[in-house]
């Protein structure tokens, strides 16, 4: 057992990618701490003058071990933990987890709860896209756009606070329903403010399309073909901007997406400029969906009481987070706690596409292109290993991790 384990690790080291084929003078380290990144990730940029030849990522700086921690907490308490995977897409995480668990129970979700989930999920999409537009202004040096867009984002966050009690960690999803109802007297105020947001988004669309200095920074930057995106398994607004009509809300509807009409926004080719147009148009679509849902909300209870144990089984569910397809796999062995929870976030799927989009551009384009995929490294992180002497990088499978744990904690089992 010991010999085969060591041999497997040795094989892995031999066959992984090498880092030291490039000389150190051309290496500009982007990260882990950099003003252009919200979260720490290390990208080694190999430059020739100002042109980027290659990008080598190294992830794992914000890995928190949430999947393991989930195995030690009861079902409902995990909702709060998964909510805190990411601040911007927090409701998407909790909703995906809750949906995965609900299909193992055999209760029927109340209709009103489905509509409320849709309203809050779309509000989160609006706030995430507005945040992203502001950030694009910031990376392009256009601080004015950044401040204006975030000023309007405050309106959305105030609506969320009136519904959920907190602006970011909404704590709204629970197994079989939502925890609180939307207060009825406030709904007309919400609708009016959302219509104001639509007029502001039309103005920003105008600025994005006509301001020359912004167009120089975003048009033609970060081009990638739709075929390459499909090969690299990209998800979210990135593939929709390339013209591929893929959206979980339409392909596999969850919550109330069957009952609320939705327009799918697609553009014809990916570059940063079309990504900005795509996300701004998606905000308008989301506002229309929220207004429809608020006006047609069915009466009824918002949650059901559930027992604290979940029957044996395994299930997977996916939702359309603001960044793409978020995927949760849940396995239960009939107890109070889950046996395994696995999360696949959209940024992990989009990262190879971002690295491909960077090649051939200059250093000034790096923050703009990396933010183009709307990265959320906090959600995405995985462990990776680096051997300092030979500078080889590799990853372990689950079985290798388990074997390593056994060998580390029980050295007497080595034969």
């Amino acid at each position, binding site marked *: 057992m010991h010999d085969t384990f060591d041999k497997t690790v040795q094989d892995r080291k031999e066959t992984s990618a090498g880092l030291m084929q490039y000389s150190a003078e051309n*290496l*500009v*380290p982007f990260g882990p701490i*950099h*003003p*252009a990144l919200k979260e720490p990730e290390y990208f080694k940029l190999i430059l020739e003058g*100002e042109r980027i030849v290659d990008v080598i990522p190294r992830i794992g700086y914000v890995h928190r071990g949430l999947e393991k921690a989930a195995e030690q907490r009861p079902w409902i308490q995990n909702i709060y933990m998964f909510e805190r995977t990411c601040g911007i897409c927090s409701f998407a995480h909790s909703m995906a987890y809750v949906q995965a668990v609900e299909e193992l129970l055999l209760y029927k979700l109340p209709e009103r709860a489905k509509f409320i989930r849709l309203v809050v999920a779309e509000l989160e999409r609006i706030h995430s896209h507005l945040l992203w537009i502001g950030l694009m*202004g*910031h*990376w*392009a*040096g*256009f*601080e*004015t*756009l950044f*401040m*204006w867009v975030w*000023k309007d984002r405050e309106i959305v966050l105030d609506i969320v606070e009136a519904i959920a009690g907190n602006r970011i960690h909404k704590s709204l999803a629970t197994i079989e329903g939502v925890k609180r109802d939307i207060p009825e007297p406030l709904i007309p105020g919400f609708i009016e403010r959302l219509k104001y947001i639509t007029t502001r988004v039309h103005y920003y669309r105008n600025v994005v399309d006509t*301001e020359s*200095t*912004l167009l*120089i*920074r975003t048009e033609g930057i970060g081009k990638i073909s739709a075929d390459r995106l499909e090969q690299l398994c990209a998800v979210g607004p990135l593939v929709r901007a390339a013209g591929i009509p893929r959206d979980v809300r339409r392909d596999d509807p969850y919550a109330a997406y069957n009952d609320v009409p939705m327009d799918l926004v697609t553009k014809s080719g990916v570059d940063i400029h079309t990504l900005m147009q795509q996300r701004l148009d998606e905000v308008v679509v989301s506002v229309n969906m929220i207004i429809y849902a608020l006006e047609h909300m069915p009466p009824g209870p918002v949650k059901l009481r559930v027992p604290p144990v979940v029957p044996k089984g395994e299930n997977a569910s996916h939702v359309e987070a603001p960044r793409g397809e978020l995927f949760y796999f849940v396995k239960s062995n009939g107890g109070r706690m889950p046996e395994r929870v696995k999360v696949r976030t959209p940024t992990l799927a989009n990262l190879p596409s971002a690295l491909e989009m960077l090649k051939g551009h*200059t*250093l*000034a*384009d*790096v*923050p703009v292109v990396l933010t183009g995929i709307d990265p959320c490294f906090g959600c995405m992180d995985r462990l990776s290993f680096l051997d300092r002497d030979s500078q080889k990088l590799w990853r372990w499978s689950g079985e290798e991790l388990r074997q390593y744990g056994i060998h580390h904690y029980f050295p007497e089992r080595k034969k």
Partner: protein
Amino acid sequence: MILTILQALILPGIAFTITLGLIFEWLERKTMARMTGRVGPMVAGPAGVLQPLADFVKLLYKEEVMPSFADKTVFRYAPGLFFLAPLVSMLFVPVIGPSAVASFSLDLLLIVFILAYATFVVAVLSYASASSFTTVASGRLVLQYVSYEIPLVISIVTPALLVGSLSIQEIVQAQSSRWNLLLMPFSFAVYIVALLAELEKPPFDIPSAKTEIVAGWLTEFSGRALAFLKLSKELGLVFGASLAVALFLGGPLGPVPQSIVPVEIFYTTYFLVKLFALGLLIFVVRTALARLKIIDAAVLFWKILLPLSLAQAFFVLVVKG
């Protein structure tokens, strides 16, 4: 003699320039904040006027850290050299009257030389703090300098072509009937754009791009050196705007009524009003535009602004002759 020394030290010399620099920084932050819906500095002093001074003083007592592989001599002494450039240049611009504190017949050439010297000091400075970000920044700085210098010099020299003298004082005095701006508006526009490039304000803040190369050539500085470097950038703004006022807007000249108030007050008031108006124009332009890339900035200067300034100079020569 004593009067000259006093003028050099206080008004319109060192104290005046530094105070104007701090006020301009406050004005910039306040207008930029108000145009984006924020409030700007509020706490230090009435309406936050003392905020730049507070930032300066705070930086003075912070620890200075030097990278171990930086060039020690340059790192330590170059910030002081950069600080001197706008201070010395301000002495040649008439502020309190039609004549400047110091002047001679070729002082416009000296100004051009000092501008080149200042940029050279910055390029050496950023190359001496040898980290990967500052190396990229120094490359961008030199490329940007090479692009904007020729249109800048041509647009500075065009008023001299009209008046026939290279002394700033005489250029100002020749504008007593009408401003140079009316005869050479394109020179003025080219000068303003080149000034934005020299001061590294958006759309040309490429060498110190905050979101790409951390802080550009300012990255490795801290403590006193950083305080003086930041102040020098503001003084550069004051000087650049003062030069534009002197060359194109008639300096401190304006109608002076007879009264018991000394005539210097009127001249200084006119100068300050024109200076602040120009400053506001620069702040509005900087808030409204995104940052260009270095290649696009170079293309802009070589393909558009250089022919424009040459055409304007040729037009002035034709009109004069």
